[in-house]
């Protein structure tokens, strides 16, 4: 588990507020720095395809990943580097996918934020927004059929994705089946350039929860402690048989839609509002204020994290790219059914 590397203090006990918070903070930090590394590599022309950052959403995302356990099912979206790492994805998987290493989990067939390991409960997103939720539902149904002990499924998405038919059908399906599903909607105020007023007409997306038979929770998502509490509680409730849970997170995207986008359209008023405060900074302030860590310690953690990332990137940059002549070009697992067409 990626975070384990960073959070190895011998006496750590994440059920203690300080330890849990520190672990989450270090997860956020890892995600932030990893994201920034990819952004740098992108600007240097070393990454193919889009780079989408979770800047400003790490507190929420890490809380999701931390609340899950092995055996659970997680469907992250484009801003969930933190959640992925916390759920157990390795920095190596991330780096290999972004840098197009043939050794990555997608072996160059798919890239970047599309990575996943379905066998380990980490679903590889398709781009079509909303489409992953019903897949999580299906996995949970399977767990029910197979009588697996209380697993949880968790799907993340942005507020824009709530406008898709796929979202609706899957939410309703989870409600009807009373699945242990947690859906987290990060309302970061924009879907690409589109503000929420062009996306939905309710006062709050929380108004949707009851219509699907979900319990609803809201959280101001640049507050790590609040995220840990609210998301943790939602996951625990789902796990305990409390039925599907909907978490509406209020925050602001602190970056472009992707690294190609300067986000000039973001309302400056939002940026300077409380919503615009950076969750990572706030978490650092909290650590210092609570005296859970000293400034020097923060520096050390940052240094360790940078080093870890640099090592992984250096390793991956030496790895081979996929070779089309070794690619088997097979979209079917049943090799005998392949056609030899040109």
């Amino acid at each position, binding site marked *: 588990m990626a975070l384990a590397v960073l959070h190895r203090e011998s006496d750590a006990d994440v059920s203690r507020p300080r330890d849990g918070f520190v672990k989450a903070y270090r997860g956020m930090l890892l995600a932030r720095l990893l994201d920034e590394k990819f952004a740098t590599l992108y600007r240097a022309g070393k990454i193919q395809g889009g780079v989408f950052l979770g800047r400003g959403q790490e507190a929420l995302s890490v809380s999701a990943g931390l609340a899950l356990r092995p055996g659970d099912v997680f469907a992250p979206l484009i801003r969930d580097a933190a959640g992925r790492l916390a759920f157990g994805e390795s920095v190596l998987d991330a780096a290999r996918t972004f840098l197009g290493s043939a050794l990555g989990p997608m072996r160059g067939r798919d890239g970047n934020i599309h990575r996943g390991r379905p066998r380990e409960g980490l679903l590889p997103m398709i781009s079509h927004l909303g489409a992953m939720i*019903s897949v999580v*539902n299906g996995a949970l149904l399977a767990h029910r*059929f197979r009588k697996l002990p209380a697993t949880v499924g968790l799907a993340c998405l942005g507020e824009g994705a709530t406008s898709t038919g796929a979202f609706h*059908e899957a939410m309703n399906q989870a409600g009807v089946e009373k699945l242990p599903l947690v859906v987290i909607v990060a309302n970061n105020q924009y879907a690409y350039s589109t503000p929420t007023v062009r996306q939905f007409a309710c006062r709050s997306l929380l108004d949707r929860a009851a219509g699907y038979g979900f319990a609803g929770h809201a959280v101001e998502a640049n507050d790590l402690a609040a995220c840990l509490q609210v998301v943790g509680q939602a996951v625990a409730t789902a796990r305990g048989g409390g039925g599907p849970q909907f978490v509406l997170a209020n925050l602001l995207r602190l970056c472009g839609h992707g690294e190609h986008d300067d986000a000039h359209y973001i309302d400056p008023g939002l940026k300077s509002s409380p919503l615009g405060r950076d969750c990572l900074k706030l978490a650092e302030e909290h650590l210092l204020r609570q005296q859970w860590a000293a400034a020097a310690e923060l520096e050390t953690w940052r240094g360790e994290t940078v080093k870890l990332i640099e090592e992984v990137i250096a390793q991956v940059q030496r790895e081979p790219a996929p070779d089309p002549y070794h690619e088997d070009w097979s*979209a079917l697992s049943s090799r005998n059914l*392949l056609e030899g067409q040109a």
Partner: protein
Amino acid sequence: MSITYLEAIREAQAKALADDPRVFIYGQDVGAFGGAFKATKNLAKEFPGRVLDSPISEDAMVGAAVGAAIAGMRPIIEMQFADFSTVGFNQIVNQAATLFWRTQVACPIVVRLPFGGTSGAGPFHSQSIEAIYAHYPGLVVMTPATVEDAYGMLLEAVALDDPVIFCEHKYLYYHLKAEQLPTEAMPTGKARIARAGRDLTIVAYSAMVHEALAVAEELATEKVEIEVVDLRSVKPLDTDTVMASVARTGRLLCVGESWPWGGVTAEVLARVASEGFGLLDAPPMRLNAKDTPVPYHPNLWAAHRPTARSIAAAARKLLRM
């Protein structure tokens, strides 16, 4: 005892449920009601908890099937009509069909599509849309034409590790009967010589096989021997068997109930023309439905799709070439 094509589909599902605890069925009204066509009749009772009624949510039905497959199950999805699969289209072609290629994790789901025309069913309960699925990589598209294949291929579909679009023809549901169910099946991906002949090859699939056989019968009285190839699955498409038949007859007529542009008949002709050009003694021909939505009125419907009559006319024309 005699068994219909529809009953064969029910029996195959009953056997799949009985043999493999990973199998379950999910679809609208498939539970206590037994499905709009009764293809799951009594299965909910015989296999409690394993035949689930779904909301009217085709996208989520397929998405859930993929998730369940990832987590070790083998779901069978029933679309109430093939035509409604267009609202589950994205999950089929972009989620299910890409999973194995992207992750090396297989996606063993079966999507049953009651398809094809029946009299009076109209534009949205008659479509033959096998081609839109066959176009996408990562899917197997089966089109059984016989009671035996309806049974055997559905069992194979459930056993396959890849997503299968199972096109079952609504016209054949009640019209086709067999004496008993087969104990063995031809392998998936192999076409069948439904009738041997040496003058002309008619390649067909699903309900059109029977129209072709009727034409072969009719023309036999005129001393013309038509070979009928039943494709069985349109993807993979068994080019070898088609080519071997054309090698024997030198003449190819391909018949499909679907629309003309880019359908099975286009694919068959393209393959034979490019890979078997030298085998042809005459231009390959094809016959499809007309390029309009499927009409509601029986008079129009009968003229819209190929029938024994129009196939016979095409065959005669081709024999004169």
